[in-house]
């Protein structure tokens, strides 16, 4: 390998100067906007969830409408663990991740074959089965009322979760950062390169000797684990788990988050989460009942106009195909 190619390959994985700034800003935000710590916490969780979807959707090209299955699994696992075993958040988080990773490993068998439509159906079906399960097993999950009475212990034995949500926000931000760094390592590694090869041309990837099936299974499992972490964070910081975590809305929303921010780019999930949460917050305070209409309209316009053109208004009046 020549020096120039090596440099250009390494260039994409190198830390950009604005990245530490962004993270410093993120960690300063609960202090600067202390009254909005709860929404910062939510944004961090949605961002982590979006990153997990990005691993399979953006980098591997698996269209999934049932990613909430893993999110919800993590949430219920963490909440049940805190209620029945021990209230320590970090152990609960690890337990939630483990359970949803296991579920992801099982589910990865179902996404190997067929077209986009088949995969869409299978993932959607998985999400719905888990929703039904959580609804029916009401002795365990509390059914439609949600799982109540989850009391979390203090973080690291020192920091209590309080009403203002500052501890929660820092907790979610830290976990988010850890997983972000891991995901960044993953997608810039040779493993990540093979994932993108599979996304771009599965047949050709197979022909140059990439073990497509095991790669798909592995990335799906990892992604499920990360989604489970996001779910566990939600359950722990709100002290509550309800059927809402498995809802179809959640799978659709996280897809929207990712598409708003940009698919196949890890910061896309973060940018999308900030934009989406702020938009949702504003819209639902204006029209509490009908905000889904505006979200829908936004989606339609976004797809029709194209994300690239929507973000760059000065290209609107240029002729297509020219220059």
């Amino acid at each position, binding site marked *: 390998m020549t020096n120039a190619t090596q440099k250009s390959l390494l260039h994409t994985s190198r830390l950009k100067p604005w990245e530490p700034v962004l993270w410093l800003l993120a960690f300063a935000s609960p202090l600067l906007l202390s009254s909005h710590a709860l929404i910062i916490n939510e944004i961090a969780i949605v961002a982590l969830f979006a990153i997990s979807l990005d691993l399979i959707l953006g980098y591997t090209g698996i269209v999934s409408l049932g990613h909430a299955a893993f999110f919800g699994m993590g949430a219920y696992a963490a909440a049940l663990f805190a209620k029945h075993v021990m209230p320590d958040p970090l152990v609960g988080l690890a337990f939630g991740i483990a359970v949803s990773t296991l579920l992801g490993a099982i589910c990865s068998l179902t996404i190997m074959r067929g077209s986009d*439509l088949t995969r869409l159906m299978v993932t959607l079906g998985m999400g719905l089965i888990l929703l039904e399960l959580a609804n029916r097993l009401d002795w365990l999950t509390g059914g439609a009322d949600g799982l109540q009475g989850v009391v979390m212990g203090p973080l690291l034995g020192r920091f209590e979760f309080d009403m203002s949500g500052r501890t929660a926000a820092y907790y979610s931000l830290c976990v988010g950062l850890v997983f972000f760094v891991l995901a960044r390592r993953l997608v810039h590694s040779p493993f990540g390169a093979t994932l993108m090869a599979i996304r771009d041309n599965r047949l050709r990837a197979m022909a140059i000797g990439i073990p497509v099936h095991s790669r798909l299974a592995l990335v799906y499992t990892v992604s499920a684990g990360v989604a489970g972490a996001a779910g566990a964070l939600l359950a722990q910081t709100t002290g509550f788990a309800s059927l809402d975590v498995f809802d179809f809305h959640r799978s659709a929303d996280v897809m929207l988050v990712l*598409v708003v921010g940009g698919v196949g780019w890890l910061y896309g999930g973060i940018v999308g989460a900030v934009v989406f949460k702020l938009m949702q917050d504003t819209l639902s305070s204006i029209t509490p009942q009908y905000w889904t209409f505006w979200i829908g309209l936004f989606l339609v316009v976004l797809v029709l106009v194209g994300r690239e053109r929507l973000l760059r208004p000065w290209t609107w009046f240029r002729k297509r195909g020219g220059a």
Partner: protein
Amino acid sequence: MLTILFDGIAYGMLLFVLAVGLAVTMGLMNFINLAHGAFAMVGGYITVLLMQRLGVPFLLCLPLAFLGAALLGGVLERTLYRPMYAKPHLDQVLFSIGLTFMAVASMDYFMGSTQQIIQLPDWLRGRTEFGSGAWVLGMGHYRLFIIAVCAALTVALQYVLARTRFGSRLRASVDDQRVAAGLGINVNVVFLSTFAVGSGLAGLGGALGAEVLGLDPTFPLKFMIYFLIVVAVGGTSSITGPLLAALLLGIADVAGKYYMPKLGAFIVYSLMIVILIWRPQGLFVRKGGK
């Protein structure tokens, strides 16, 4: 037991009429349209409005529901859907989810979130029973009516697709759009009319099913999964595939809810996943799994 079978068939027939337009759109244009249920909802609401506000008889409402939904489908196809055909599947999914959200919220806004009730005419309300003991067959007249209408529609559709000039044009456009266009077939018009008819059928199904399935603004989201199951399991290459899949789904759902109410929708979803893992292209396609 026969009663359950009968109800299942009626339910399956209804699902077939609701979903057949989707099967054609997916098979034809390779377009994943999650907003299909919205057209069914429009048909249902047209019927409700006409009957409650204007006192139009039920039988006259059905063709009007068809026309209304078809018109809406045609207009949307021309304005919004056509640019989407060439886009990747992810964009199509997002686009149609967005449309569904908009339809749900605007119906909520205009009509309220309560469930709408349709007053059936008297001659459809009765129920006839045959046989005795375990083999008793109770047939609700309305369900009988649904089966008759849907069976007639199925035969008509099969005839149009297999025997008429329009059917052969449609099949040609499905197989290869460019060659069909080269032969002088106006592919855009074929697609437009097919989409409109598919939406119209959904509207008709929504009108017919308003009494059985229940009609409220969340209808498109609630039944989207059922339509998709019919299409994904049945395959998109023929009419018979979705028909058999819809019947299977209808019977499995009704029987499951009757015999094992605890399990609820599990049976249907698990069955679908197993079938799709076994034959990813659908149950009734000649190509089979790759």
